């Protein structure tokens, strides 16, 4: 089964028509999740522009901890591949790096390229649980927490705090490294901590090389940030209510908008696994859910549920590649049946065509024919407050 309306199995075409009807009359529609291949995310931005919707990726909160720090003060970052090739020191902040698998890769070899080539690689942990199988030096974080410890380390590195201190030795190691890498998860450091560690990295670059390496989120957030940048010039929490993209991380936070009762219809896009928020069952919602081969999705996830193909499994797709820290093409799984389920991008394009069709009820016009900045789907009721 691949489509449901009100929990009842339905023809896919009927479900798409019902989805278009659900979104057509909405005052403030929301397109959330965006845990999908680049083509589908791009199609979601196109649809949002046409119907005046706002967008927020499932990865939103943690992504904005990093984007906020980036927008405020910039960042000097590297990629996992560069870190493996060049780093003679890796500092893991908190728990997340130890759960990422990257620490094992980094422990397996020393730097083979660049100025630190041939040196041993030191693995250091600040406030992390460590891993018994990986040789590393652990520095504790007291009850003040990780962001406070990062600030303290920055003060020590810059020489503004002197004297004996448990982290003084760590600051010396960072200064003496030829190519240091600070590995962190913005969800764990928070926006203030991320900005502080970017400052630490910049301070170190006064005398040596050091880079920040944020762990990607598992929900395509980094790819969504890029699609949003090339589609709107801004971060992914944008709204098209007034025609042009408005970037407002507070206003377009999906969780906040739904809790405040500001959303009257929603589309949840997750062709890859993402935790389903509770509101998809309470708000009039269309859910496009990736259905793995031989797997099942629940038809009760939302008022309208449409199964879509899993990118990189059912069909080839551009997805976030965590190792390369870039969008990369992923081929389908061997033996995939490409036509078994449509890609989410096709459903979204179908919705766009239906919602931008002339009001006379004539055939749908191709999306390319419309002006990019004009919301063409008109509200049904006249303006009233």
């Amino acid at each position, binding site marked *: 089964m691949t489509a449901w309306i009100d929990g009842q199995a339905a023809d896919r075409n009927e479900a798409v028509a019902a989805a278009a009807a659900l979104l057509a009359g909405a005052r403030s529609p929301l397109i959330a999740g965006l845990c999908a291949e680049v083509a589908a995310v791009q199609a979601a931005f196109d649809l949002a522009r046409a119907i005046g919707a706002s967008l927020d990726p499932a990865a939103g909160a943690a992504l904005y901890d990093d984007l906020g720090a980036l927008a405020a003060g910039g960042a000097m970052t590297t990629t996992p591949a560069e870190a493996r090739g060049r780093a003679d020191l890796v500092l893991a902040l908190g728990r997340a790096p130890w759960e990422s698998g990257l620490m094992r890769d980094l422990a397996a070899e020393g730097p083979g390229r660049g100025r630190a080539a041939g040196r041993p690689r030191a693995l250091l942990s600040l406030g992390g649980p460590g891993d018994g199988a990986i040789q590393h030096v652990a520095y504790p974080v007291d009850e003040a927490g990780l962001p406070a410890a990062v600030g303290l380390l920055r003060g020590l590195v810059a020489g503004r705090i002197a004297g004996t201190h448990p982290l003084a030795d760590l600051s010396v190691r960072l200064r003496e490294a030829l190519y240091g890498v600070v590995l962190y998860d913005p969800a764990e450091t928070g926006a203030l901590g991320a900005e502080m560690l970017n400052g630490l990295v910049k301070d170190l670059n006064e005398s040596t090389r050091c880079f920040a390496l944020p762990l990607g989120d598992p929900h395509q957030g980094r790819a969504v940030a890029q699609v949003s940048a090339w589609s709107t010039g801004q971060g992914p929490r944008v709204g098209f209510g*007034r025609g042009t993209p408005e970037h407002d991380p507070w206003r377009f936070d999906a969780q906040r908008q739904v809790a405040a009762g500001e959303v009257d219809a929603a589309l949840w896009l997750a062709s890859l696994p993402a935790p389903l928020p509770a509101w998809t069952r309470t708000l009039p919602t269309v859910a496009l859910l990736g259905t793995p081969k031989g797997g099942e999705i629940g038809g009760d996830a939302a008022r309208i549920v449409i199964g879509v193909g899993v990118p990189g499994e059912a069909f080839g797709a551009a997805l976030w590649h965590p190792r390369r820290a870039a969008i990369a093409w992923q081929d389908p799984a061997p033996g995939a049946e490409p036509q078994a389920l449509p890609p989410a991008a096709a459903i979204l394009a179908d919705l766009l065509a239906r919602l931008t069709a002339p009001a006379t009820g004539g055939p749908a016009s191709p999306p390319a024919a419309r002006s990019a900045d004009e919301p063409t789907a008109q509200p049904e009721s006249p303006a009233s407050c």
Partner: protein
Amino acid sequence: MSTLTLREAPPERLDLGGLHPAALAGLSETEVARLPVGTSRRGLTLGDCFKVSLDGSDELRIVGATERLDRVGAGLGAGRIVVEGDVGQRLGAGMRGGSLTVSGSAGPFAGTAARGGTIRIAGDAAESAGGAVHGAQAGLDGATLLIGGVAGDRLGNRMRAGLIVAKRAGTHAGARMIAGTIVAEEIGDHPGYGMRRGTLIAARHGALLPTFAETGRQDLVVLRLLARSLEGLSPEAAALLRARQRRYSGDLATLGKGELFTPAG
């Protein structure tokens, strides 16, 4: 006095930025009613949501306000705006002068980038009051922000100039401050995280960061001058400044030219 009266709870967030006495002066009530305030594709106008009554004076009253009204008083240059009720985010954003008063509470980023004038919030203010919005150079930037109730976390986040007085504030008050002054009866944990310069004064505070260093007890003339200037705005804040103070210097993680004063009990 001109008055805008909200007819009913608005069905979407409204943007009242730029609606101030000087901007309305040359317009008729019909023209003002046609000004766009909606944020959805419905294209709501002021007249759709408010009863408009203008008299050309430099005072504007907004009656029946709710937390869905964003950017109230944004860009105000002169005159007076009095709000009866609550407001949403970015109250008085980029304000340059005049006075803005809210009888209820304010959403986040009240007074962001405000360069002049006085903002009074009788109730509470949500997070980042006087704070910078995403990617902005500065939060409060020279204006005066008075919060009668409780301010949320990150009060005065990246503020660059001006004065904030609040009764209480959450965690990270004065985070990333560039300069300016914050006075509160009580502030939460880790005040001044990443502050470069600026002054925090609080009768009580939560846990201090390890990057703040005590620099002794002080009786500074500048604090007495500040107390005198605060007398008219907030007698409680002025009284707080007259006590003998213990001074902490920070945040040594960054430039470290900021300071936290707390009465030396």
